[in-house]
């Protein structure tokens, strides 16, 4: 489990983590697609799931929240930053939960880059201690 850096001002606890399998998959996908980022999707078919895009493909806006970021490089000499974003209106309903990006066998995923590998990123959630993340 790899916890993200804290990216929300005033907070002290990580909000999002990569499972070991997700970390390995993101590293592998980076070698195919280059730098990557996540945006958490809302509802419908393939939705309510994290979408993984090449950096620069999906444009975040002032109405998105950066929930966390990782450096997924296994070599200390290089940097491989990956950010995790969500729309602020969705964050208003999700903010009390900690998210872990995991991987399951799967078929499809909008335009997320992992689908051809026969896998799908999936969010697992747990309640945060309500006082802590906002302290």
């Amino acid at each position, binding site marked *: 489990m790899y916890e993200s850096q804290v990216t929300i001002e005033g907070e002290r606890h990580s909000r999002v983590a990569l499972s070991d399998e997700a970390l390995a998959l993101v590293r592998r996908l980076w070698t195919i697609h280059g730098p990557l980022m996540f945006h958490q999707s*809302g*509802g419908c078919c393939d939705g309510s799931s994290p979408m993984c895009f090449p950096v620069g493909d999906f444009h975040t806006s002032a109405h998105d929240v950066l929930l966390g970021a990782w450096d997924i490089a296994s070599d200390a000499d290089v940097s491989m930053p990956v950010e995790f974003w969500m729309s602020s209106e969705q964050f208003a*309903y999700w903010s009390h939960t900690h998210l872990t990006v995991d991987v399951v066998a799967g*078929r499809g*995923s909008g*335009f997320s880059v992992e*689908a051809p590998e026969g896998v799908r990123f999936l969010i*697992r*959630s*747990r309640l945060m201690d309500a006082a802590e993340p906002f302290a």
Partner: protein
Amino acid sequence: MTIYAAPGTPDSLITFKSRYEHWIGGEWVAPAKGMYFEDITPVTGKPFAEVARGAAEDIEAALDAAHKAAPAWGKASTTERARVLNAIADVIDDNREMLAVAETWDNGKAIREPLNADLPLAADHFRYFASAIRSQDGDFQEMDGTMTAYQYHEPLGVVGQIIPWNFPILMAVWKLAPALAAGNAVVLKPAEQTPVSILVLMELIGDILPPGVVNVVNGFGVEAGKPLASSNRIRKIAFTGETTTGRLILQYASANIIPATLELGGKSPNVFFSDVADHHDSFYDKAQEGFTLFAFNQGEVCTSPSRALIEKPIYDSFLGDAIERTRKAVQGNPLDTDTQVGAQASNDQLEKILSYIDIGTQEGAKLLLGGERADLGGDLSDGYYVQPTIFEGHNRMRLFQEEIFGPVVAVTSFDGYDDAISIANDTLYGLGAGVWSRNGNVAYRAGRDIQAGRVWVNNYHAYPAGAAFGGYKSSGIGRENNKLALSHYQQTKNLLVSYSEEPLGFF
């Protein structure tokens, strides 16, 4: 009761090909990169056919074919286009049972649904738009005695359409029928979870259409959907799916300055006012069924009534009856016409639903029914089955705010009309809603006050061609199912004509 033979067994109504290619320019075309992927049936969790894995080269080939076909199709008379659409409808009707087996095997849905809903609706949809285009008038305005402005509807040309997996054939038809009626050529990408049933349909109707008018490129979103949606050779993109991809498609469309229509998610409230329980009669029974429709199509419907709001005076009794009714829902072999709840469409969908059941429990929602994966035994053991699940909680829980796309309903109570509307509208989405009351005035006002594009009043989950369908808020842009959809596939040409010989006199 009928149990249709499973594909691959001797009595099956369909024998799938071992491999399906792209349909481009009126021919089956192998993928440029020579790669294929497996289509898995959710009924057993086993692969049953290979499907061409499309890439940008295949999209370009399909766009070439579409651009070649578009001018003649766009100039074909509305009489001729309507004839083609009606002929397609007849073929769907004539092959209803075979297509239903294909759809159930591809998607996992209980076969009574494609037999009685998806396919009859698909046929009717083509007929509706055949009729709509025949009866569509242009208009004119007489500016003065010698000048008239004429408005003509013209096709856009070549359009892209990306189809979801929950109603693979019907959702394709919702987009194809207005596009074709309006005179466009189409490049369509089915969902990678459920590509085959559309290809089976193309085997039947391919010859009815002029080559290149409809082209189907299969493959994954990132490999085939993205080059289609971001192409500068389409004049419009239509997408049904989730919000992040919807935003991405709008970003691509903005780069090319083309319109996009989007049908995105929902978290539809189903509101039961206390007077539904004034009598335990047929209407009460109908309202109870309206609650249970959350399990229709395994909950894999953008408008699934996944939030049930019940007025306090009847909360315990109505919910108690609804739990008992849902408990009787028959889950089983999707090819059995007695089955009411089939399989979820994919393994990742199954996993996502289970992850939501987990967070719901953590958040303190009370599990009232179901809550687990269902093991149906035998060949079905590895299929993707989830028990119809009822949770009780409050509207700020994630169960109440996120589209689970499974047979899971989140139930809460409300205290009077204003509370009902407040809870119903406390959501990012606005696709569907249900209102149940014996008081026509209450039902009318609630229907108008709920911020959703489709409010079913004293019914739910009907999708007749003619009734406009589309989202408010984050649920999307545009309307389908109604002649309004023609406008999403047409340009307006204005001819401003002077019938005077007199010079303007300015120069």
